[in-house]
């Protein structure tokens, strides 16, 4: 009974919804990155690495310029650079996309760790450097529930949802998107119609770089205001899972990310609830909740998802 009361309290707590959103946002960004890339047929497991790089670079330039938005801008540049490397290896040189992605993850870990000392004078982590302030929407502040749930959010959260809409628009409503979907499914067919397969794939991978680096930047300058080595903590891989769970569809990926953020926020709130009498030592197990939920959802409810047919296959004329 106490558990039910605790759960009821969580669901009626407006802040819970805000926490769901903030937890989901990095996954939304990064899984969109996955969608952009894979819908054109390039597997991108480097999301984790690009995120880490984005988190790092945005903090570096925030520290230098004092303006976190400039940090985000540079994160995008570097994300593009990382993605370009991946595209170059996997499109131009038709390399193994998984291996190339793994290499980029290591590269990001190496470079960010390596540069900590020269830039910040000490390894490991930075101090709180600065972050993007939350955006208060006065209209929403009138209602207590709305105010506490979505009245005051990081502008990057709005950007994330904007990116979902944009990705949906690009992929399903523009001619570029039609070509992206065609190239990911049957590059040969697209090629015979004069569609430049390589260009389209480059576009997809570069977009994924932008998205993943935004996801990383959200973690650092969007949320915690500092950088810590390996601070992405596997979120790129979770985003990959969200992308698959969302069936390679930007809106689906968003829902999957929200589901994940929701269960994470739920686990945090539930384990902290004073209603619940659980031994402290077992409380860390609450953190498994999002992973178990995902497992159940994919096994029980979603099952087969279908990747683009040419996903991961280098295109050779």
């Amino acid at each position, binding site marked *: 009974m106490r558990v039910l009361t605790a759960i009821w*309290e969580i669901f009626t*707590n407006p*802040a*819970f919804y805000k*926490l769901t959103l*903030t*937890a989901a946002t*990095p996954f939304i960004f990064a899984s969109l990155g996955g969608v952009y890339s894979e819908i054109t047929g390039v597997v991108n497991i480097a999301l984790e690495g690009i995120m880490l790089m984005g988190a790092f670079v945005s903090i570096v330039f925030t520290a230098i310029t004092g303006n976190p938005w400039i940090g985000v801008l540079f994160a995008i540049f570097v994300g593009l650079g990382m993605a370009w490397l991946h595209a170059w290896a996997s499109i131009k040189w038709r390399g193994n996309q998984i291996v190339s992605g793994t290499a980029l993850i290591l590269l990001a870990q190496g470079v960010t760790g390596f540069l*900590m000392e020269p830039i910040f004078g*000490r*390894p*490991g*982590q930075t*101090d*709180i450097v600065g*972050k993007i*302030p*939350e955006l208060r929407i006065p209209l929403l502040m009138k209602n207590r529930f709305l105010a506490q749930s979505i009245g*005051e959010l990081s502008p990057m959260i709005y950007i994330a949802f904007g990116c979902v809409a944009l990705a949906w628009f690009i992929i399903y409503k523009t001619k570029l998107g039609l070509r992206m979907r065609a190239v990911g499914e049957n590059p040969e067919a697209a090629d015979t119609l004069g569609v430049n397969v390589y260009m389209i794939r480059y576009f997809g991978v570069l977009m994924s770089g932008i998205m993943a680096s935004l996801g990383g930047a959200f*973690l650092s300058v969007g*949320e*915690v*205001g*500092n950088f*810590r*080595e*390996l*601070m992405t*903590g596997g979120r790129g891989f979770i985003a990959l899972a969200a992308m698959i769970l969302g069936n390679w569809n930007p809106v689906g990926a968003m829902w999957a990310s929200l589901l994940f953020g929701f269960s*994470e*926020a739920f686990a*945090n*709130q539930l*384990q*902290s*609830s*004073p209603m619940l009498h659980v031994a*402290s*030592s077992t*409380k*860390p197990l*609450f*953190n498994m909740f999002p992973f178990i939920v995902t497992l159940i959802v994919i096994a029980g409810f979603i099952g087969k998802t279908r990747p683009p047919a040419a996903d991961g296959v280098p295109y050779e004329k």
Partner: protein
Amino acid sequence: MRKVLVAILLVAAVVFALGFKVIMVTDVGGLGDKSFNDGTWEGALRAAKEIGAEAQVIQSYEQADYIPNLTKAAQQADVVFAVGFMMTDALFKVAKQFPNTYFVGIDITPPEGQTLPNVVCYIFKEEQAGFYAGYIAAAMTSTGKIGFVGGIPIPPVERFRYGFEVGARIYSTLHKKKVEILRGYTNDFEDPKKGKDLTLAQYAQGADIVFLAAGACGNGGIEAAKEKMVALVGSDKLVDIIDYYTKNKKGYFAIGVDVDQDYMAPGVVLCSATKGISSAGYYGVKAAWEGTFEGGLKILGIKEDGAGVSPMKYTKGMIPNIVIAELEYLTKLIKDGKIVIPDTEDKLKAFQVPSITFPF
């Protein structure tokens, strides 16, 4: 002639000192953890400078590196630091091989029954530091709810919590103020975002002060407090925060851990529950140099400068003087052993708040 002798002695001293080498082997966390590794390094470096010794740090990537790194260090150095509880087994294996090298283990408890004359281990009475955090949090909360965010519930983290809970209990008994504690764990020491989310989850449930014993996750927790405070106050300037607090008697605070983290968000970090890690590093080197090295386990508490609270440089203005005075009195009682802060779950359960009358 005297001059020459002095010169020779001096050179000899320098040569000898140059020959004296300190190597610190970190655990996989490495330098920059603002905790054990950084603290030990700081202390060791201070001591090395004083005596003119050479100091070097070697980072480990993985557990399989501990033995080779310690071995290599032992081959080259006079004092080897092994930092972090993960290195326990490796330290004792290697130290056996090098009886003429001094080893200092930080946050390491010797395995059952093992003592070596050339190994000294330092651990800390985190519960005593946690006590300060709990007492201050209980005194300062305006909602009657305070939070504890832990990393992985390993013994040092848990000792912080025992102290925190006891501190809060003592305050609430002495002052008849109802204080509830929310507890949660990130199960991680590296991920600041996790720390932030969990801290915010506790704020969402009514806590207004959260003690962060979660390594680097804590940085995120501090940022969470700052974010909430800024939303409340409308500014992150110290003066504004103090103004607001004096007027409204409420705010959102974090409590730092291990080292003085008050500077990370002035006015928002209420205080930090500190451990005397750097003094362990310092004394380790000094003892070896001076020949007073003695093996065994040393548990450092308030008395030995091994546990304490930050000077509260920014928040002193907000914390009532009476609370500071009470703490000073309680510190004395702890030092004298009149109050024993529990260091296990069972002792925590059994803990009875003794009757305390303040002399003022």
